[in-house]
């Protein structure tokens, strides 16, 4: 069966190649730091299940140390210059979009085929992971198509990939670190503490103010955890179910669905949601690592107010 395990191998081989190419890059001032960093990612993806929990923990500490103390940096593998790219873009024309569409189209058609044709029942593909599997397939098809059409140097995909991953740097690993921090937060009972604190500020008897605290609590706790999924069970247990649904008779579907969306407003405003907010800042080479968050605040706050209003109006109609 093709599933996550195969994708870990694919990604692991790619990171291992990045590590090797970093080591060989004589023009890179921090080549050994980068090689160690991507090498550890390769080890995690290829052998994470073999090195034990403590081994993984030490691996994470090493990644944090390499990133945190400045041992990794950008690289400049040989690629094309701006003028060459402009010329190539004119020469190849809009056909250049075709290989770019292979990944999304493969993921799209594959997912549809998995769900609506007998392909899903063959057991060839791991259930619930089909989009990832087709994403991986799309990557391989796109690389194959580009080799057949444009005949780039053999190492070009890996060198170009290394150029991009080095531009992103540690931000590529941060989302995984934050997800792990969330696990420790949960184990330490941070959810219970936040829930208890929120209950303290609720005024008795006012449905409207309770809705406000619920909505704000979802947004703020999501900002702290970086993820509305972690906030929802806590806020549901503290306010949503006992007060809004049970005491005041609110519609559970509205409280649940729109409460979660109030949390999403928080996701737009926090660096803890690194993969949505910090990674794109690195990927687009913004000067301000909080630039994406800044761009989102003025959408998020009015939307949060609307969500709170919607819960009040729709749940207690």
């Amino acid at each position, binding site marked *: 069966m093709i599933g996550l395990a195969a994708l870990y191998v694919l990604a692991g081989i790619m*990171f291992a190649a990045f590590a090797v190419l970093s080591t060989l890059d004589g023009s890179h001032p921090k080549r050994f730091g980068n090689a160690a960093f991507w090498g550890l990612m390769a080890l995690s993806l290829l052998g994470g299940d073999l090195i034990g929990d403590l081994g993984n923990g030490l691996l994470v500490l090493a990644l944090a140390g390499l990133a945190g103390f400045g041992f990794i940096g950008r690289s400049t593998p040989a690629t094309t210059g701006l003028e060459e790219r402009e010329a190539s873009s004119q020469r190849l024309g809009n056909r*250049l979009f075709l290989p770019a569409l292979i990944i999304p189209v493969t993921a799209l058609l594959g997912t549809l085929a998995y769900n609506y044709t007998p392909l899903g029942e063959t057991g060839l593909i791991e259930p619930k992971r089909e989009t990832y599997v087709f994403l991986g397939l799309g990557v391989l098809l796109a690389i194959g198509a580009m080799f057949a059409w*444009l005949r780039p140097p053999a190492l070009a995909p890996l060198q170009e990939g290394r150029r991009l991953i080095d531009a992103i740097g540690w931000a590529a690993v941060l989302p*995984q670190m934050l997800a792990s921090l969330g696990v420790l937060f949960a184990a330490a*009972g941070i959810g*219970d503490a936040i829930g208890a604190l929120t209950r303290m500020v609720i005024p008795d008897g006012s449905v409207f103010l309770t809705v406000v605290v619920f909505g704000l609590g979802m947004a703020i706790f999501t900002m702290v955890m970086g993820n509305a999924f972690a906030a929802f*069970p806590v806020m549901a247990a503290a306010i949503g179910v006992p007060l809004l649904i049970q005491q005041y008779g609110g519609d559970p579907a509205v409280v*649940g669905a729109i409460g979660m969306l109030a949390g999403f407003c928080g996701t737009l405003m926090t660096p*803890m949601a690194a993969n949505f907010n910090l990674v794109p800042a690195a990927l687009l080479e913004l000067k301000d690592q909080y630039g994406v968050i800044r761009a989102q605040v003025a959408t998020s706050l009015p939307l949060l107010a609307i969500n709170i209003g919607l819960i009040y109006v729709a749940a207690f109609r």
Partner: protein
Amino acid sequence: MIDYWPLIGIVLVVAGFAFRLNPMLVVTASAIVTGLIAGMGPVEVISTFGKAFNDNRIIAIVWIVLPVIGLLERYGLQQRAAAVIRSLRMATAGRLLILYLLYRQLTAAIGLHSTAGHPQTVRPLVAPMALAAAEKQHGELTEADVEEVKAQAAATDNVGLFFGEDIFFAIGSIVLIQATLATYGYDLAPLELALWAIPTAIAAFVIHGFRLLMLDRRLGRRLGS
């Protein structure tokens, strides 16, 4: 009795981000401190952290698209995307991003949320297209304008994804809401929850779309065209 001491872990993270310390160190320090306060031993803390990292490797898979994106850039995809936009008379940065917002919300609403994203679509296509549209309309952009247009391209992807995906009933957040409320005896159909995501999706489109139109006007004013 509720134990409030683990909240120190949150204080550390907030302070670390506020002072712009390296997030990798901030997160690691907070994880260790939180674990120790919660009564774990040092080895147990590191093991728990490592196990969680290993369990979340799925997050790293998306980077397999980078070799393809880099290869396309090598042959001028960003320039091609910009050229197409320059050939469209009506294109502005704001209108283009509104179109992408709609596309992202609609595809996410039918469960195709992983087919677009910051590495797959924003860096190679959406951001260069938005920049080209802004330049075509207003001439040479200042560095601050370039920053703002790029940041809005990323923001538009996020807004479209977040406020589209919950309309699709078979997504993680809907399953989580349903499972959480089911433990209290409220048995809701996923479809019922997904329907209540629609009003917010419309509001998100209106608010963010309005801001994108304002972006066009602001760029125009600043550049005097």
